[in-house]
């Protein structure tokens, strides 16, 4: 089977859109991807309006952030993959320096040192979400694939250093995503299944070591997952309340802005990490399934772009960005439904918050650039 023969669904080449298509092409944008992102963002804004208890100030702030993120995507989309590749090592080094700086000079917010203020306030860890897979892809670009052991070791260091620096902030969610993005590059580069299984086994003692390094609240989250009812008003509270919110929504939901769990403050972090629960309560199973469908479409389109990519760098990067996006979606929805421990991973394009949205959109910008410079396939 040849993947290039996949149905027209992901190809986005249909005649009636040719006029729009021309404009998009001139802007180096991919129509189906843009459409999927647009629909998710729109749905996200609708849900957020209810989650912030109809606070217009917060809602407009999010709209502004979305606008800034779209601008970032437009800019990144104009950068050809070759240029991105040449800048990659410098970008990665700069990111590492900023991470180091954050550990010493960063601003403290919510008990962690994550923010850096150099003219604008941002989280350097966000840069790493893109810089790490780019660096890994850059390193493998000119090397033989599947990667040799020595190469793997080098990439291992490339992934581990920023991951550890971010975990030290501490920011478990972002460090997991950064590591995931890097590891996905190796997996896509053809890391043998045997090695993966071996690494998987090795991760058991590794997990033990990690456990020793975890902050108490992080350990608590893992323990809470195993038995949320053990401490219903303490650590397990989030999960219990979010399950109540989702479960009480039923098939059709209680109706938009008619939820009770969020406005009455039972549900913590309802506008950020737990916004999926608000959606589940108000829009029901049909609502959340629609959102998951849209996510699947965007992920599928991203993977399709990666297959069409021109070179190893583009291919690995596009694949990693798409799959990392999937991991974000999965980890968030799985944690809100109580399937995995609560780690601070926002629901992409829906959760309230700025930095991650800019990174996400920049990632989509890269995908679009890669698609614009794709290998032309025979049709």
């Amino acid at each position, binding site marked *: 089977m*040849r*993947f290039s023969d996949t149905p027209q669904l992901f190809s986005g080449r249909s005649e009636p859109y040719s006029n729009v298509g021309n404009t998009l092409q001139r802007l180096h944008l991919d129509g189906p991807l843009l459409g999927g992102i647009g629909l998710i963002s729109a749905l996200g804004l609708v849900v957020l309006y209810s989650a912030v208890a109809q606070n217009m100030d917060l809602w407009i702030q999010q709209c502004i952030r979305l606008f800034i993120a779209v601008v970032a995507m437009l800019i990144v989309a104009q950068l050809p993959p070759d240029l991105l590749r040449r800048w990659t090592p410098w970008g990665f080094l700069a990111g590492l320096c900023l991470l180091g700086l954050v550990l010493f000079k960063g601003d403290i917010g919510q008990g962690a040192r994550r923010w850096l203020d150099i003219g604008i306030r941002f989280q350097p860890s966000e840069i790493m979400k893109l810089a790490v897979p780019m660096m890994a892809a850059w390193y493998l670009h*000119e*090397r*033989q*694939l*599947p990667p040799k052991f020595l190469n793997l070791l080098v990439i291992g260091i490339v992934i581990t250093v920023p991951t550890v620096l971010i975990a030290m902030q501490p920011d478990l969610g972002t460090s997991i995503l950064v590591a995931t993005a890097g590891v*996905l590059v190796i*997996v*896509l*580069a*053809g890391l043998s299944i045997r090695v993966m299984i071996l690494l998987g086994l090795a991760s058991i003692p590794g997990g033990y070591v990690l456990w020793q390094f975890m902050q108490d609240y992080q350990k608590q989250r893992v323990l809470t997952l195993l038995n949320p009812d053990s401490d219903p008003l303490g650590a397990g509270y989030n999960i219990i*309340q979010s*399950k*109540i*919110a*989702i*479960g*009480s*929504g*039923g*098939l059709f939901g*209680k*109706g938009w802005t*008619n939820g*009770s*769990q969020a*406005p*009455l*403050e*039972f549900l913590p972090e309802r506008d950020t990490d737990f916004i999926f629960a608000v959606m*589940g*309560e108000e829009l*029901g*199973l049909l609502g*959340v*399934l629609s959102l*998951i469908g849209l*996510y*699947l479409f965007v*992920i*599928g389109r991203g*993977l399709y772009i*990666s*297959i069409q990519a021109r070179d*190893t760098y583009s*291919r*690995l990067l596009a*694949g990693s960005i798409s*799959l990392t996006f*999937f991991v974000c*979606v*999965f980890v968030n*929805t*799985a944690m809100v*439904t*109580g*399937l995995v421990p609560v780690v601070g991973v926002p629901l992409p394009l829906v959760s309230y918050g700025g930095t991650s949205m800019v990174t996400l959109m920049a990632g989509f910008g890269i995908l679009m650039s890669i698609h614009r410079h794709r290998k032309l396939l025979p049709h």
Partner: protein
Amino acid sequence: MSLIASIKDHHSERHMFVGRIILSSVIAIILLGTVIARLVQLQIYDHAIFAEKSLGNRIRTEAVPPTRGLIFDRRGRILAENLPAYQLELIPEQVTDLEDTLAQLARIGLIKEEDIPRFNGLSRTGPRFKPITLRFRLTEDEIARFAVQRPRFPGVDLQPRLVRHYPDGELVAHAVGYVGALSTADLGRLNGADYAATSHTGKTGVENFNEETLHGDVGFQQVVTNALGRQVPAETRDFSDALPESEGPVPGSNIYLSLDLDLQRIATNALEGRRGSIVAIDPANGEILALVSAPTFDPNAFATGMSPSEYNALQNDEGRPLFNRAVRGTYPPGSTIKPMLALAALQIGATNLTRRSVCRGWYSLPGSSHRYRDWRPEGHGEVDLHDAISQSCDVYFYEISRDIGIDNMNMYLDEFGLGRKSGLDMAGESDGLNPSREWKRNAFRERADQVWFPGETIIASIGQGYLLVTPLQLANAVATLAARGERFKPHLVAAFEDPISGQRTIVVPERLPRVSIDNDFYWENVIAAMHDVMQSPTGTARSAGAKASYQMAGKSGTAQVFSIAQEEKYEEEEIDERLRDHALFISFAPLENPRIAVAVIIENGSSGSRIAAPVARTIMDQYLKGSVDAF
């Protein structure tokens, strides 16, 4: 293209990449499938469970306090009501600097410096949004003072609440009692669920005894609350499911007392500046017409709350204003028991109406040199039973006491209700003491003390020695004398009233076994002697009885607090006020179909006939001047 690139096998590399993408996609679909399965489980299979939990999360049942029943006197004058009053409340979460706010409030005199630590503690223990009451009732002046300074005190506000108010508090404090803040001990005694919203409960008197009736039933209201338990106005948010039913509170019953507020006022004023008690009873049914203990206090202070120092001042006051002398104070009855002993003596034949004795001012038992003195050192001369009562001759009673004997004395005094709880509808009544041989055997440890001595019978005959009665028991005994042996259980509550329908339930007087002396001749003669106490030129209380427009019977009593040596003379002026004799007086009127029986006890009042009798007369005058006011 670099050298290394030439080694790369682009076709196989791309092929492998596609393979990996397919693998990833499969894994991704499985993982998202798991999430979807989980969503189906939560939203379809377990939907009902979670829907209920969600409802339980935000719907809270809030108790609504019932309105406490009102208390009226026999003529429908209000004795206890519920007034809207402004109380000063503080909501901790809205106060920026608690210490400073409390200090400022103390500076402008709205709270007391000494209470600050208590409020600090309260603000830390409860939920931050729950108001703390700083003051239960502000005066008009304090309301005004706070109103102008209100902007300086964010989080502090005036709240209207219903506060128990006793308009004539000091006049009825010991009968009506008072409500006070509900304590943990109260909650143990009362039905906790019924008091979920109640802040005060009856602590003493009628308020306490009739707590259940006055309180009413708590109501319920379903409220929408947020995660912190804060109430959210239901109308601001349209919840898809309606709130469950609410149930309104049932107000407590109103109570009409048999007390007459005018009598209470006269009795209270008569005892002004003294310690003592007055109890008046309707002999025809046992209704309490007046029940006063002096000194009195303001029960409103308990309802509105007072500081520990104010309470201690009240508690440690030398006059013991909180002590309900009428039902708890026990006193030797002195000569007031002579009419009852006279009846007992006639009934058992220990004397008769014609027997005469010579009183020389003292009496000795045969073979003993100990002299039992008469209150009149020179003696009363030749007296019969009638004279012995009207002139209160002690020697006559000393003589017949030997023939009555302590066993009969005990039996008949008991029939008159002395030395036992009367059964009044009020808690905390004292027993008093009606001594007997058996009592003495059990009361003393030493065998020598357990024997009843003949001398003890002699002093018992003039109401001294071990005999102790409460003013209520004494008043009840007078009512029995007035009713010629008919007895009723004394009671304060005359009727209950449903506050909604206005329907009244009259309390039926409870008849007690009558005194076992059924010869009317005896009763009439003894009562005639009591009449002479007030009317005859030799009657002990003739000055108190003078110019009465009705026929009145009475008997004075003077009870020793301090025993004087054999040869000493009692000199009122030389004895410390606290050691002076108690002054007692019992009386009833009119002689036929008596309507009121009164017992007056004035602690250290020296003389029953001089001090206590005029008080009884004033009360009679007041009560009998008006038309008949049966309830």
